[in-house]
């Protein structure tokens, strides 16, 4: 067996998407030594790299910002925190322009530099280059498998595999560890989400962390059927038809996917973008370069012809839920473990409604910066503690309780998708359907705990994380016996004011759900 790669550093960042990139840059800029590991490649991994994130972007004018926050609070259904909204507006406004020199910000028609929206591939390439220039040590294709704990229960680093270097094991000791592992879309074909299997949630839960808002995990995005192209802006010009050619009317009004989903359950739905004027058709490749690729390659004219559409689940990506954070440095309830971007709950900035590419991007940037700076300070304060003994705490998918017949991760993933992806389960929730799914997922978890491990460790661990995440989402959805924001229950279609609280979920073999009051509500009222 090849010797493990043993490293120590001040700050370990797990995940190289938007939030992880900003975290690494902030920590290194504060003088810390930083290692960033990514399952894939820091620059193409994650959902930002394939997208074009807009950021919540409001000039520093008290009135404008107050109005922006009020507008957003109206859709947060009582679960947001004004102080966090103010913070992400401020941090984003000050930080994005610091990418100049790495990202070529264009000028708009009026000659103003356009900062608020960036093209994904160029954004992540810029973050990688800036991080490298700040001295961040990058390990690509190095998925983390498990966390390391000190004797006092604080996180001491992580361990994983270098999948392009002979599957060599890596062990990294750090003063603080930042989980930037993204949300989880349950392996739906959502563009860029293949690596987002909930690994960070599972690793954190094994250390004792809890999650929040996991019931807000049912956002869906339109795509041409059979493709991954979930870039939805051009659908502002969509006209929808059924198989007989009947115009279906404004079925995507307000961005709610449920009307389209209902129609898709009955039969194919076709779309034409013929309402897009010719000047926009001719410049669409300059606005969204990848949008037309799938059409071009299938010989489809999306403007003059009609093409079938579908919806792809977003899980906790354009959903809201994630690891619960306990302070303004984005620390989890486990000491020296931090969560940023989609790995953390975004209820504080988005409430019960998707933060889309606005709040979520501003959150990714802000949470990354906050955690990066905090861990750099933590390293100065308490050191790396590299001489202390630690233990690796990964269980499900790594160290099965019993051996015997090994479980097949592909089979488990198949079961998982069948519970989490069909529209009738994801978008039209009822207590009965959720209970039935939870039963299936609990049995899959039992199988994982007893029999999964030994083969492809990365795939096994992904299967375990996916099922763990699904159980937390389903348990929270079952406990929230009302409809609020994106969480819609057909058996409880109204909002229940008595449930204006967070749902904290956690636990592995036994999942528990506990209501928690929204921290800042009292402060807001004062």
């Amino acid at each position: 067996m090849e010797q493990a790669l043993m490293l120590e550093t001040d700050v370990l960042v797990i995940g190289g998407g938007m939030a992880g990139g900003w975290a690494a840059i902030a920590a290194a800029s504060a003088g810390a030594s930083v290692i960033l590991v990514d399952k894939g490649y820091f620059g193409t991994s994650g959902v930002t790299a394939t997208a074009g994130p807009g950021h919540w972007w409001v000039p520093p004018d008290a009135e404008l910002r107050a109005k922006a926050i009020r507008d957003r609070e109206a859709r947060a259904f009582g679960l947001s925190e004004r102080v966090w909204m103010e913070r992400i507006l401020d941090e984003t406004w000050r930080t994005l322009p610091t990418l100049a020199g790495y990202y070529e910000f264009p000028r708009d028609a009026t000659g103003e530099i356009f900062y608020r929206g960036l093209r994904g591939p160029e954004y992540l390439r810029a973050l990688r280059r800036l991080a490298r220039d700040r001295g961040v040590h990058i390990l690509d294709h190095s998925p983390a498998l498990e966390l390391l704990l000190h004797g006092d229960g604080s996180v001491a680093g992580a361990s994983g595999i270098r999948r392009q270097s002979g599957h060599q094991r890596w062990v990294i000791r750090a003063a603080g560890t930042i989980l930037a592992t993204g949300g989880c879309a349950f392996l739906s074909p959502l563009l860029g989400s293949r690596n987002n299997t909930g690994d960070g949630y599972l690793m954190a839960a094994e250390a004792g962390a809890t999650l929040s808002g996991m019931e807000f995990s049912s956002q869906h995005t339109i795509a041409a059927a059979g493709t991954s192209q979930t870039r939805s802006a051009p659908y502002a010009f969509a006209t929808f038809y059924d198989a007989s050619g009947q115009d279906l009317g404004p079925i995507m009004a307000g961005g709610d996917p449920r009307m389209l989903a209902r129609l898709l359950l009955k039969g194919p739905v076709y779309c034409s973008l013929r309402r897009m004027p010719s000047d926009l058709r001719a410049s669409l490749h300059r606005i969204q370069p990848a949008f037309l690729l799938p059409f071009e390659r299938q010989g489809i004219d999306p403007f003059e012809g009609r093409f079938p559409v579908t919806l792809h689940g977003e899980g906790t990506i354009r959903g809201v839920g994630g690891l619960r954070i306990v302070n303004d440095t984005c620390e989890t309830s486990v000491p020296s473990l931090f969560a940023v971007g989609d790995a953390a709950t975004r209820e504080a900035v988005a409430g019960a409604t998707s933060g889309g590419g606005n709040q979520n991007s501003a959150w990714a940037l802000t949470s990354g910066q906050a955690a990066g700076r905090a861990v750099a300070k933590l390293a100065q304060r308490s050191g790396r503690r590299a001489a202390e003994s630690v233990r690796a705490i990964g269980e499900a998918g790594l160290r099965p309780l019993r051996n015997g017949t090994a479980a097949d991760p592909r089979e488990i993933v198949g079961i998982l998708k069948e519970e989490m992806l069909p529209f009738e389960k994801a978008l039209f929730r009822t207590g009965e359907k959720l209970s039935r799914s939870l039963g299936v997922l609990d049995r899959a978890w039992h199988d994982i705990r007893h029999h999964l491990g030994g083969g492809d460790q990365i795939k096994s661990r992904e299967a375990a994380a996916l099922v763990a995440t699904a159980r937390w989402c389903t348990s929270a959805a079952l406990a929230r016996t009302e409809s609020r924001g994106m969480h819609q229950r057909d058996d409880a279609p109204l909002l229940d004011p008595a449930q204006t609280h967070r749902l904290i979920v956690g636990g592995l073999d036994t999942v528990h759900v506990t209501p928690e009051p929204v921290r800042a509500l009292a402060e807001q009222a004062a």
Partner: protein
Amino acid sequence: MIELIVDDRCTRCNICVSVCPTNVLDLVADAKPRIARQEDCQTCFLCELYCQSDAIYVAPQIDQPVAVDETAIVGSGLLGHHRRNAGWDEWATDPNYRNEFWRMGELFARGLGFDPATRRS
């Protein structure tokens, strides 16, 4: 999913092996990379974006492999479209491929029928 690496275009730089976020490709000594785990491809087209020799073809279909004819694909002129449309590398100074991402607001506004200046319909 990725279907093709055109051998006589590939320069063996192997950048696609590195940048593929889902580790689909295997490095092969003195040859083009091998499509080793096609089922892990997420059809994100990013390998094409990074391939300066326009040697890669990703089919848009996500569910199953599709048969592709190398001669036809090369002849179609589709290779390299993504890199060109994104204005990367030698296309960076071509005005037809400049970054107009700032027009996203206009796209929504005109599609949904309101005036982008006033944000009212």
